[in-house]
């Protein structure tokens, strides 16, 4: 995989040859910016549905290995 990644990075380096002085970056091509909605509560998933895909749970919580003091 290292060889493949090197080949891809070499290929991508061709961008360095393009003059982009003064060009604004284009993060996405949509004309829509800063879309807000009213700050009102809307229904969300009930806990049982939200947790249905959890790999491990305890009651209404996701269960993970200890984060501190391993």
């Amino acid at each position, binding site marked *: 995989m290292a060889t493949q*990644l090197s080949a891809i990075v070499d290929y*991508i380096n061709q961008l360095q040859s393009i003059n982009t002085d003064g060009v604004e970056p*284009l993060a996405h091509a*949509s004309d829509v910016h800063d879309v807000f909605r009213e700050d009102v509560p809307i229904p969300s*998933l009930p806990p049982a549905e939200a947790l249905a*895909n959890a*790999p491990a749970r305890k009651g209404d919580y996701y269960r993970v290995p200890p984060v501190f003091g*391993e």
Partner: protein
Amino acid sequence: MLNLTATELLQKQAAGDLTAEAIALAYLQRLRETELRVQAFLAVDDADVLAQAKTIDARRQRGEPLGRLAGVPVALKDVLCVKGRRTTCGSKILRNFVPPYDAHVVTQLRAADAVLIGKTNCDEFAMGSSTENSAYQITRNPWDHERTPGGSSGGSAAAVAAGQAPLSLGTDTGGSIRQPASFCGIVGLKPTYGRVSRFGLVAYGSSLDQIGPFAHDTRDTALLLEVIAGHDPRDSTCVNQPVPEYTKTLDQKLAPLTIGVAKEYFGEGLDPEIEQSVRDALKVYERLGATIKPIALPHSPYSIATYYLVATAEASGNLARYDGVHFGHRAETFAGLIDMMKKSRGEGFGAEVKRRIMLGTYALSSGYIDAYYLKALKVRRLIRQDFDRAFAECDVIVGPTSPTAAFKIGEKVSDPLAMYLSDIYTISANLAGIPGISIPCGFTKAGLPIGLQILAASFAEEKMLRVAHMHERETDWHTRRATV
């Protein structure tokens, strides 16, 4: 029945000559007869499909009003969430993921009374150009089983080409609808960025991803686009603009019509047989009175390099959520939290996904972000400006969809860069956010389909479909069917 278009299936049901149940039974039977050879589907639930169809028939009998796709089977790429139905993205990491909600396009299909026939195979997280990167199976091209159907929406394209479904949905981040449409001899359309809501589409490259239709002809394509397009507040990039009635204006020829032809799309690497078919298609348009105008897209040679920085950077963020905590695969044995995340990701992701996460992480990393990610975003603007200038001079840009016809299974798997290059003509449309369509325009001597790509300005799908339809009316390539 299986050679009918969706439009014809709707007419025959309205006339009382066919029922939704009979249609569902015929497609399910065809699916069972061909699936061992094609391997297009990851999941089909016959009982559920028949139940949906019977409900439509019962409602029709009661005289209830029915939706635009009543009783028409539609297959879904397995990156689209269907409530209560496993959605894997072709990845082991989501082997057991069952979404708690429907994607917006699925809600639209249900409202139109379509019959959801099943989930189709794809490259893992839509990363690939051949559908070989699926963790589950290799889909075969219905025209030649030794060859790929293209990708990443190869299952959805192969399903329509093999007559397993009259319509399907795919997603296109760099060509993943148009390239498989071209390889499979059908129509595939990538809408303008923001035309179709991405809510419930599992994210790959969020500023590039769009959902779009596959069909046998432009009328069915227009119909399915009409059903899925439109505003949805749950996707903040989805634009609040009325959806034109594409099917109503499809027959109107565009006159005058100026077709832009970019020399960059006819360079080194283009198979002479593909070039000949595309030149023949341009002659069809000339006969219809179109003006062919040379245009320049000087930055298009840089589109692949730009894409593999932008898409991978976005992917590295989007795929960070697969950490074994909230959903998806969790490793069985690990030592502590970080090790759990590492092992879960290491076991769950395939090689191409790992390659792209590493590349994207590198492009965004401190010390490299200016040279890679930001540089790519600047070149992205130059690519967009090329198109803005071009569309000031022409209505549409016409060229080949892919430089070659369908390649052989295994041919490019060990050389990712060679695989990426098969998207050279499609990828810049995603960077620029413009719509594109691939329509059948011929066959190679070996009998493989050839696709013609038509690109248009943002939100000019109506014009693009009309131009595509002009070619379709003069030719019969779209009526050819694969013998599976």
